[in-house]
């Protein structure tokens, strides 16, 4: 076999050209005092804490959920017993779309991509034996986020846990749903109101909760470039801040609780530069655009997940190597928490064995590699600083374009970010076809006979079990109270009141997720996008 390389295209995974060598001449516009600072100091390029991982390792937070609440509860107990430091709930598609497990649209989907949660009763089962004051819980839920959060808050009430003390994150980032992941229910503006309701409620009643995790992960998975991921995510952040300020909240009261979620893809240095630029751009935005004074308002705290779309179905054990490199980039980029994907996830939700290797990968980086000892170890690298500055410049250019369109909602309504991402993803696929970009085992170094991988099979009985629980619930609860609370919610939704207290009342009465979302559907209508292909 020939070892002569084809004419190489030296570009990042996102297509940005890379020079052979970087020298001080490439950093003529770089001012360390202005652009770099120190870890824990303005402009936070080097990290949000002075001590970084000496002070506290990142949170190892593996996203998990499948089948019934009972099955997922068992997986949580297992993950906690193996040294995982926080929980992260994956919900199934019906839950994400605000349908109960027994809804017609839920057919074939119950428990498949996550755990099925249709009511407070399911949420109680999910956290059975898990003291919510002692763990932090992240919930990947968007359009119906306020409902699932209300269920968690009522579980806390029932455990006698104080809302003042519990901590966690609801993803609750609806804008990236219209842009990329497409799990939306209502139109953008009423959806933004619901998000703002949670931010306001959190400030007043659940001060340690992160009401939103502004997410680039899904934007990247949809095929965006690294810069598009960063720019659209931070610009979404600006939109949420504007809505909360419009609501009458002081920026320094809520901005410290805004958190972010990024993808860590396969181009090592491009990703590290993205994380470093994220902190700098967000700090500048909060100070200069919103006049934030509280230092904590300036900090871009983020969770990272390795890139699901980089995993290959072919030669799946190679995914362990990919994930390790991506996780290392996230750590060198200064992430606050991390999910590492499992080797079998191009095929299915992970088996317990595969999920454990993924967790161990993080532990190897944390405890063996030595990279946690010095903060921002790549700071000052000519190459990394150049990439960081370029990422910042290109991100600000997207800000200008989106501002000119009238903000992110107007840009979404015109299909601007959607079109940018569709173009980038097609370009990447074309580069794979021509082998300008390589995926090992897919378009190069293929093998023909592969042993089948053991896969997690979701028991088809989850749907029947959840349907039976709903039947029992609807028969045993106080249905008069259910309809009263739902009516009150509908009235609140028609007005301008914060909807959270009304949702909490519905949840306490064991109204189902579908019933609560139907009340909102009645008032707000549903959203249909114009598809861009």
């Amino acid at each position, binding site marked *: 076999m020939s070892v002569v390389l084809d004419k190489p295209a030296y570009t990042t995974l996102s297509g940005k050209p890379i020079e052979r060598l970087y020298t001080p001449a490439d950093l003529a516009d770089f001012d360390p005092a202005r652009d770099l600072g120190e870890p824990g100091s303005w402009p936070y390029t080097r990290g949000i804490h002075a001590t970084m991982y000496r002070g506290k390792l990142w949170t190892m937070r593996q996203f998990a959920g499948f089948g019934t609440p009972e099955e997922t509860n068992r997986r949580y107990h297992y993950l906690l017993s193996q040294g995982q430091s926080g929980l992260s709930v994956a919900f199934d598609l019906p839950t994400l779309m605000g349908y109960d497990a027994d809804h017609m*649209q839920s057919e*074939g989907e119950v428990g*498949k991509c996550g755990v099925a949660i249709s009511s407070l009763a399911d949420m109680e089962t999910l956290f059975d034996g898990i003291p919510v004051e002692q763990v932090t819980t992240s919930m990947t839920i968007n359009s119906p986020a306020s409902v699932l959060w209300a269920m968690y808050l009522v579980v806390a009430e029932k455990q006698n846990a104080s809302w003042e003390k519990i901590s966690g994150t609801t993803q609750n980032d609806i804008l990236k749903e219209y842009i990329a992941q*497409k799990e939306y229910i209502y139109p953008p503006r009423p959806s933004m109101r619901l998000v703002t309701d949670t931010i306001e409620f959190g400030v007043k009643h659940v001060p340690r909760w992160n009401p939103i995790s502004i997410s680039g992960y899904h934007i990247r998975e*949809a095929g965006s470039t690294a810069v598009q991921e960063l720019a659209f995510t931070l610009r979404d952040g600006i939109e949420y801040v504007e809505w909360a300020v419009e609501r009458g909240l002081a920026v320094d009261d809520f901005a410290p609780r805004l958190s972010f979620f990024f993808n860590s893809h396969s181009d090592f240095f491009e990703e590290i530069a993205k994380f470093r630029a994220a902190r700098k751009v967000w700090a500048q935005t909060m100070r200069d655009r919103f006049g934030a004074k509280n230092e904590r308002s300036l900090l871009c705290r983020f969770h990272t997940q390795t890139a699901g779309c980089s995993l290959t179905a072919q030669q799946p054990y190679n995914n362990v190597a990919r994930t390790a490199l991506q996780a290392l980039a996230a750590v060198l980029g200064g992430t606050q928490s991390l999910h590492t994907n499992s080797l079998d996830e*191009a095929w299915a939700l992970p088996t317990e064995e595969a999920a454990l290797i993924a967790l161990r990968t993080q532990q190897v980086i944390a405890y063996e590699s030595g990279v946690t000892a010095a903060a921002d170890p790549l700071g000052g690298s000519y190459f990394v600083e150049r990439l960081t500055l370029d990422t910042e410049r290109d991100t600000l250019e997207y800000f200008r374009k989106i501002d000119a369109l009238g903000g992110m909602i107007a840009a979404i309504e015109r299909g601007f970010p959607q079109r940018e991402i569709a173009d980038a993803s097609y370009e990447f*696929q074309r580069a794979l076809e021509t082998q300008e970009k390589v995926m090992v085992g897919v378009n190069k170094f293929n093998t023909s006979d592969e042993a089948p991988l053991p896969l997690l099979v979701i028991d088809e009985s989850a749907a029947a079990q959840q349907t039976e629980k709903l039947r029992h619930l609807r028969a045993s609860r106080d249905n008069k109270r259910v309809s009263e609370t739902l009516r009150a919610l509908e009235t609140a939704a028609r007005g301008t009141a914060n909807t959270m207290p009304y949702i909490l009342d519905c949840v306490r009465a064991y109204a189902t997720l579908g019933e609560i979302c139907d009340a909102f559907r009645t008032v707000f209508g549903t959203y249909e*996008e114009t598809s861009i*292909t």
Partner: protein
Amino acid sequence: MPDRRIRVLVAKPGLDGHDRGAKVIARALRDAGMEVIYTGLRQTPEMIVSAALQEDVDVIGLSILSGAHNALVPRLMQLLRDKEMSDVIVILGGIVPDADIPQMKEQGVAAVFQPGASLEDIVSTIHRLKDKN
């Protein structure tokens, strides 16, 4: 029939919104000279079959990533039989484990494309299936 461009309905059934694959395929088939209609998200089998009938397509390309193919594909294939549209070629792409492929083929799915399939392979398969039809 005179040489007519191959008409393809790219369809995304189920609740899943991950449409990167469907959109890339739609564009690639268009670039390969086919006429492509994309249904958009969250189409029921009934809506897909009705769109296929109205648009008089030769091929339906289903994109399913959520694991719901075992529920959705048999329903769609039954509807095609009921409407005497069995001449429409159905292909499926997405996260379909090896173990499920025989059942998909038994249902009448002409080809299944798993993660990592190349655009070239998908285009040439459609041409081959169309020539056979």
